[in-house]
C-alpha cells in the first residue's frame, strides 16, 4: 500500500526573519539587500548556518532570483528554485507549500520562502502603469477606468454583499481588528496610530464599497521563512511550527477574462479550502487563530466564509471587533496588524505571525494556540492557504 500523499507533519518552519518595515519608497537599501538580510535573519532565528540553505521559493514574480541569492550567499549548491505563478499575494501559502513538497519529496533539505519589496525602486501596485496603449484583458477594462487592484476587486465584493445583505460594518470590523492588534506590535507601521469606528466611517472612498481603511498599505521590506524536515526541526532551537496542510488553485474558469469567472462573487477559495482541510485533518472549529491577507477587507470577508468560519448570511453577526481580536475573540484575526496595519510584506508577514502564535510569542497572543491558518491573496487566481500546528496538533 502506498503512503498517503500529504505533507502533514513532515515539514516545519524552523526559522523566521524580516527586515524593518518601511513606508513604501523609504527602504534605505536595495531590494536584493533587503531579501538577503531577511534570509540571514531567518537562518539566525533557526540556528543554522546560511550555507545550509539549498533551495528558495517565492511568488508574485519576485525580482530576486534564487541563482543570484545563492551566488551572493556562497551556497555550496542550489537544489530547488521555485516561483509560484500568479500575481498579487495569492501565492504566499503556495510558496510555502511548494517548499514543503520539495523537502518531503527529497529534492532539497532546507528551503527558504521569501518575499522582498522596495517599490520606490520599481513600479507601485496601486498606480496605473504608464502605457499609452493596452491590449488583451486590460483593453476590456482600462479604457473604462477599471485599472487598479482595488477597482478590479470591488465589483466582486459589491455583488457578494448584495447577495447576502452584508452591511459595511462587517468590513469595518476587519479593519478595526487589524489596527487594534497593530497597537500592541512595535514592528507595525501603524503602531501608535489607532483607528476608531468614527475615523473609519469618515474616511474617503477609494472605490465603493472600499474606503481608505479597507485597503492595504504599500510598504518596503523583506521577510523569509526557513523550512526543514520535521525531524531536523526538532533538533533546532525554536519550537517547530509544523505544516499540517497547504493548498492552492482556483475555481472552474476563475481566470476567464473580462470579469467572466462563473463564481464571480468569491475570494477564489471555494475549491481550495476543502483540499486544505482534508490534508490538514482539522475543521474550521479547530483553528485557533487566522491570518487572512487583506488586499481589501471584503476579500478577507469572503475568504473567511469560504474557509467555513461562518456562513455568508452570518457575516453581519460574526464580524465584530470583539469576535476578531485576541486574546478572547471567537476567531482572532490578523494578530500582528496584517497588511492593513503591520506591513504590506505581500502577505509573508502573515506566515511569520502564524509561527509566532504557535511559539507563544505574538504581541497579541492567543493563549494556547495550537492550530494557525494563513490565507493568501484573495480574489486573484491562483490563491492559496495553509495550516500550521504545534507538536500537540500533530
Amino acid at each position, binding site marked *: 500500500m502506498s503512503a498517503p500523499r500529504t505533507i502533514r507533519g513532515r515539514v516545519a518552519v524552523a526559522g523566521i526573519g524580516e527586515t524593518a518595515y518601511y513606508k513604501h519608497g523609504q527602504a534605505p537599501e536595495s531590494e536584493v539587500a533587503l531579501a538577503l538580510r531577511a534570509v540571514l535573519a531567518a537562518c539566525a532565528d533557526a540556528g543554522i548556518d546560511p550555507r545550509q540553505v539549498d533551495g528558495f521559493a517565492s511568488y508574485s514574480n519576485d525580482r530576486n532570483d534564487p541563482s543570484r541569492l545563492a551566488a551572493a550567499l556562497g551556497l555550496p549548491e542550489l537544489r530547488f528554485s521555485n516561483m509560484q505563478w500568479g500575481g498579487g499575494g495569492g501565492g504566499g501559502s503556495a510558496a510555502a507549500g511548494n517548499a514543503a513538497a520539495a523537502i518531503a519529496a527529497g529534492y532539497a533539505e532546507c528551503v527558504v520562502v521569501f518575499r522582498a519589496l522596495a517599490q520606490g525602486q520599481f513600479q507601485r501596485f496601486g498606480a496605473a502603469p504608464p502605457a499609452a496603449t493596452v491590449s488583451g*484583458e486590460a*483593453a476590456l477594462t482600462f*479604457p473604462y*477606468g477599471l485599472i487598479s487592484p482595488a477597482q478590479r476587486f470591488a465589483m466582486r465584493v459589491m455583488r457578494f454583499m448584495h447577495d447576502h445583505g452584508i452591511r459595511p460594518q462587517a468590513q469595518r470590523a476587519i479593519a478595526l481588528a487589524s489596527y487594534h492588534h497593530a497597537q500592541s506590535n512595535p514592528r507595525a507601521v501603524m503602531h501608535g496610530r489607532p483607528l476608531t469606528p468614527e475615523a473609519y466611517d469618515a474616511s474617503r472612498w*477609494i472605490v465603493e464599497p472600499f474606503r481608505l481603511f479597507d485597503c492595504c498599505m504599500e510598504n518596503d521590506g523583506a521577510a523569509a521563512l526557513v523550512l526543514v524536515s520535521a525531524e531536523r526541526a526538532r533538533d533546532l532551537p525554536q519550537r517547530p511550527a509544523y505544516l499540517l496542510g497547504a493548498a492552492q488553485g482556483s475555481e472552474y474558469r476563475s481566470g476567464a477574462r473580462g470579469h467572466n469567472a462563473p463564481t464571480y462573487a468569491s475570494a477564489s477559495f471555494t475549491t481550495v479550502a476543502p483540499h486544505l482541510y482534508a490534508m490538514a485533518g482539522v475543521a474550521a472549529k479547530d483553528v485557533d487563530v487566522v491570518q487572512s491577507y487583506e488586499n481589501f477587507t471584503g476579500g478577507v470577508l469572503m475568504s473567511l466564509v469560504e474557509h467555513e468560519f461562518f456562513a455568508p448570511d452570518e457575516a453581519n453577526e460574526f464580524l465584530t471587533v470583539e469576535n476578531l481580536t485576541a486574546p478572547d475573540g471567537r476567531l482572532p484575526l490578523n494578530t500582528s496588524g496584517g497588511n492593513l496595519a503591520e506591513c504590506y510584506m505581500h502577505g509573508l508577514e502573515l506566515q511569520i505571525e502564524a509561527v509566532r502564535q504557535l511559539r507563544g510569542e505574538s504581541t497579541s497572543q492567543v493563549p494556547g494556540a495550537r492550530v494557525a491558518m494563513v490565507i493568501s491573496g484573495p480574489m486573484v487566481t491562483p490563491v492559496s492557504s495553509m495550516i500550521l500546528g504545534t507538536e500537540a496538533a500533530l
Partner: protein
Amino acid sequence: MSASGGAVSSPTAYLPAGLPRPVPEPDGLDTPYWEGTRAGELRVQRCRDCGAWQWGPEWICHRCLGFDLAWAAVEPRGRIYSWERAWHPVHPALKDHGPYIVVLVELPHAGGVRVVGNLLGDPLQPVEIGAAVAAVFEPHEDPKAAFTLVQWRKTG
C-alpha cells in the same frame, strides 16, 4: 438577430481623454471584437460546434474544446451584474475628474457572458444590481488609431 438596435453614438466621451487606448492583441484574437464596436456591433464568441457562448475571447471553446469559434453580434442589452463607483484617481487622466461608475453587464440572451463598461449619467446616481441597461457606442476618433468603447445607460 438585431445587432445594433437601440445603439446610438455618443458625441462626447464619459471619461476624460488620456486613458490608455485599447489596441487588438498582437495575435489577432480579439480583432473582430474591436472591428465590431467600430461598426456599432457588440460581438462575443460563439462556438460553431456546440453553441456555447464565450467571453473574454479565447482560441478554443471551453465547453467542447473545438477551435471553430464564430463572432456573434448580440443585441446590446443586458442587466447590471455588479458595479462600483471609483473615487480615487489612479491615472493622471482622472486627476480632479471626480467619481465615475463602472458596471459589469450580464447578457442573458448570450449565455450570461459579462462585459465591462461605464454607466452613463449622473456619477452619483443610485445603482441597482439587476437593472436593465442598453449599450451606447462611444467612438474615439483618435488620430493614431480610432476605437469605439461600449457604454451603458439605464432603460428601466
